[in-house]
């Protein structure tokens, strides 16, 4: 496939596309008329054809998010059903074409879209795992976050977690009769844990491991395996992780090797799974903000941003709320760009660790990160778990001074003027570090020989696999949400989309390097804006018990690791709700792993570690 400009006759607004779609499938596509909803509903049996039409004819070639929603019992959605929600985009820019397919709750089955977008692979597995929707035609429909043998589908509305207390927070037991107890002391195996009635708990055996290895062709008849020289050979299955220093956390890869060459690789994840989304649905909208910090904990500011954007979209549907002021947006962009630099410094540093440059480069970059985190700490209160953004505002304006006071416990004191600190950082220190990084690594022979041509992902594959961020842009697709589907004040800021065409690890490194420079460019434009918006209010008017109007929203940002999206549904029997009905995180770290097996095929074992590092994942976000 050659990337050409889309056919001008076919490209238009989303309305045109929907009209086109309805004309092509008059009986199977209808508008989603529920209050606060958008997009179209596609009948399940035609889903595959409609999806192909959307991709090939309407040119929505990028499937951003595919997720399920369980509509059970609430008055607003009278008949219970499961729903898959797809967000497709054009890589040339523009907003989403949202299409949905509904199915029965009890016998949930839908056609798989993996044949249209391979990026749907992990996302459909997740929907099967957590919601129990079977995807007909999926090549490898296994659980992905829970283990095989887990009983039930935890994101279903009628599933209750082990320490289940009540449907929604705040819990009644906390106030006014808040007699404390520790949840650990409750019996986990009480009425909340479900397992099949015929099972004997004392005789449980876990078959998931052997099942996994079976898929890798263990027990092949090795007498029939000879290489081109006629030498008898055998393929070897190697398990790497979850406790392996190079996997950036508890991530596991099972590989089949022919000598040192990888013939098949399958990522295994979920070791850090905590069902973030279920927690999110128990939480109120406000409660979720600090929880988003814990997703990609390297760039928590960006996580906050995506979530507040999604909820602000919902608020704009009719709640009483003041939209963010200009200064709020300026502060948000300041924070997000700083955390993008942090993220890329971290990513490049640890990628070098994976290449074998053990900890020397990464510590140089971490030193710069320290300064930025000091700034976050002084402004937001925490170095990594920033919890800075609010609906329609931010936690607080910049302090006058980055200042600490000596007290009995801690004696080493610092005191800087905030604006001066920022100016020195943005104009001198950060650019100097980036230049040094460039001098240090870009032309290094070792870096080049290890990374050039390794881990190749072509442009069309990158799009088809729903890759995002530096992985997508390193493959020559100039798709950056800040430009393609702009949010906040990015349209008025002057910056370029970093793009490299080689599609290998080196290209991804270069994308990160250029992107850091572009971030500095943005930050330099932010500084004067900070000066002249001084004094504007930045506080949120959202009350702690604030309600959100009915509807759905998909807020997405270009985070350091790629497209981070939040699909939030507010539904209930009343006009508005305090708790999200559905809270889904489109995690770039998770979906970017879809092409890992594809990229690693044919490379050497030693490169796998580096290829994984070049994707740049954080397990907090992958496993959620």
């Amino acid at each position, binding site marked *: 496939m050659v990337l050409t400009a889309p056919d001008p006759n076919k490209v238009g607004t989303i309305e045109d596309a929907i009209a086109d779609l309805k004309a092509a499938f008059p009986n199977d596509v209808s508008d989603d008329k529920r209050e606060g909803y958008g997009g179209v509903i596609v009948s399940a049996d035609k889903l595959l054809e409609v999806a192909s039409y959307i991709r090939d004819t309407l040119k929505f070639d990028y499937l951003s998010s595919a997720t399920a929603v369980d509509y059970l019992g609430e008055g607003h959605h009278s008949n219970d059903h499961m729903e898959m929600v797809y967000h497709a985009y054009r890589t040339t820019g523009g907003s989403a074409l949202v299409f949905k397919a509904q199915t029965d709750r009890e016998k949930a089955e839908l056609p798989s879209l993996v044949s249209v977008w391979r990026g749907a692979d992990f996302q459909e597995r997740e929907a099967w795992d957590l919601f129990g929707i079977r995807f007909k035609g999926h090549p490898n429909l296994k659980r992905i976050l829970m283990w095989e043998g887990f009983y039930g589908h935890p994101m279903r509305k009628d599933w209750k977690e082990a320490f289940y207390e009540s449907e929604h927070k705040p819990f009644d037991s906390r106030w006014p009769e*808040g007699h404390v107890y520790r949840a650990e002391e409750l019996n986990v195996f009480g009425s909340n844990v479900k397992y099949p009635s015929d099972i004997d708990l004392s005789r449980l055996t876990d078959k998931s491991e052997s099942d996994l290895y079976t898929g890798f062709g263990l027990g092949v008849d090795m007498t029939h395996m000879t290489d081109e020289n006629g030498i008898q050979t055998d393929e070897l299955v190697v398990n790497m992780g979850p406790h392996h220093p190079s996997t950036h956390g508890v991530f596991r890869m099972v590989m089949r090797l022919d000598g040192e060459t990888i013939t098949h690789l399958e990522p295994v994840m979920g070791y850090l799974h905590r069902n973030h989304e279920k927690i999110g649905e128990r939480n109120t909208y406000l409660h979720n903000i600090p929880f988003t910090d814990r997703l990609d904990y390297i760039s928590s500011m960006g996580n906050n941003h995506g979530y507040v954007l999604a909820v602000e979209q919902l608020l704009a549907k009719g709640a009483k709320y003041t939209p963010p002021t200009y200064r709020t947006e300026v502060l948000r962009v300041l924070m997000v760009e700083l955390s993008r630099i942090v993220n890329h410094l971290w990513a490049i540093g640890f990628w070098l660790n994976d290449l074998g440059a053990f900890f020397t480069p990464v510590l140089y970059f971490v030193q710069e990160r320290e300064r930025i985190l000091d700034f976050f700490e*002084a402004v937001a209160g*925490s170095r990594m778990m920033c919890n800075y953004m609010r609906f329609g505002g931010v936690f607080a304006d910049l302090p006058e001074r980055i200042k*600490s006071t000596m007290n009995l416990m801690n004696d080493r*004191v610092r005191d800087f003027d905030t604006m001066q600190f920022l100016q020195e950082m943005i104009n001198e220190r950060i650019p100097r570090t980036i230049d040094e990084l460039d001098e240090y690594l870009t032309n290094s022979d070792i870096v080049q020989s290890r990374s050039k041509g390794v881990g190749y992902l072509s442009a069309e594959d990158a799009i088809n696999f729903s890759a995002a961020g530096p992985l997508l842009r390193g493959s020559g697709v100039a798709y950056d949400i800040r430009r393609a589907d702009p949010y906040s004040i990015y349209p008025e800021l002057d910056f370029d989309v970093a793009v490299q065409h080689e599609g290998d690890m080196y290209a991804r490194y270069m994308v990160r390097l250029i992107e850091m420079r572009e971030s500095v460019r943005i930050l330099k434009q932010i500084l004067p804006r900070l000066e002249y918006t001084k004094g504007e209010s930045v506080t949120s008017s959202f009350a*702690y018990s604030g309600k959100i109007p009915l509807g759905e929203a998909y807020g997405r940002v270009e985070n350091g690791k790629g497209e981070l999206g939040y699909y939030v549904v507010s539904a209930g029997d009343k006009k508005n709700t305090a708790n999200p009905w559905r809270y889904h995180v489109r995690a770039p770290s998770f979906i970017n792993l879809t092409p890992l097996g594809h990229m690693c095929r044919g490379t050497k074992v030693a490169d796998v570690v580096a290829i994984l590092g070049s994707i740049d994942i954080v397990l907090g976000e992958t496993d959620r």
Partner: protein
Amino acid sequence: MNGIGFVKGMLVTLRHFVNTYVDDLRYGFRKYSPDVDNFETRQGTKAEGAFTVQYPEEKLAMPERFRFVPFLVVNDYDHPEAPGKDWCTSCGICAKVCPPQCIWIVRSNDPVTGRPVPEPEAFFIDIDICMNCGFCAEFCPFDAIKMDHDYELSSYDRTTNHVFDKQKLSKEFKYWKTIAPTRAVEEMQARGGWEHKDAQKAARRGGADAGKDAKREEVRARKAEAAAPTAAPAAEAVAEAPKPAAEVKAEPAAAPAAEGARPWEESHDQREARKQAALARKAARAAKKDG
């Protein structure tokens, strides 16, 4: 591919290596002396070389907004009128806004009328669950709960030490002024004075205040009476010297006797019994209200 890029890279490493020693030579032993004047430079934007802080010999003072496990603000212990009085009115907003739901509050009720008294009977924070988000401090309308700067909370036994009760959580208002001077002033301006909002309201009302104080005393006496059968000596102390200070000190003795010294150590049955008692009390109150 001639090795020049690699050599250039090594020069960067060398530069970093040398810088570390330049820093050492520049400051010598003054680097770690108790009256550090170079710390700010070494940790600021002009820093070069090693940036490590020699923890625990050197401890970074936290910026004002730093947030760690919250504490409850009480009046200074040398406060002229109400030493050690809780600022918390047990309105429960912090417990509701807490994302991991780690705050537990028992609202105190007047034992005779059953009406809530604006003071918590018990207040617990499970610090193992607390995620240090700072929402409780942000949404507290009375500035009664604040995020602390003391981050050294590790202990040898998490099962007993990590549920902080009111006594352990309470810190003087003075302390808040030392760790966050700027914010304390900002909040004072918003409140209109250094005192608690309610105290100011009472002061503004002037004459009416005396009656309210008398009523408070009355409630206190009644509370002491209610606690008397189980904790007679402590309750007597409260009854005889109905000063707020005495009450704060006596409470750990009086309240736990009624509620169990360490509620998190109770057996399931005890907890159930207590829950039933609470429900019965609630039902009685409701009945009274209806009747």
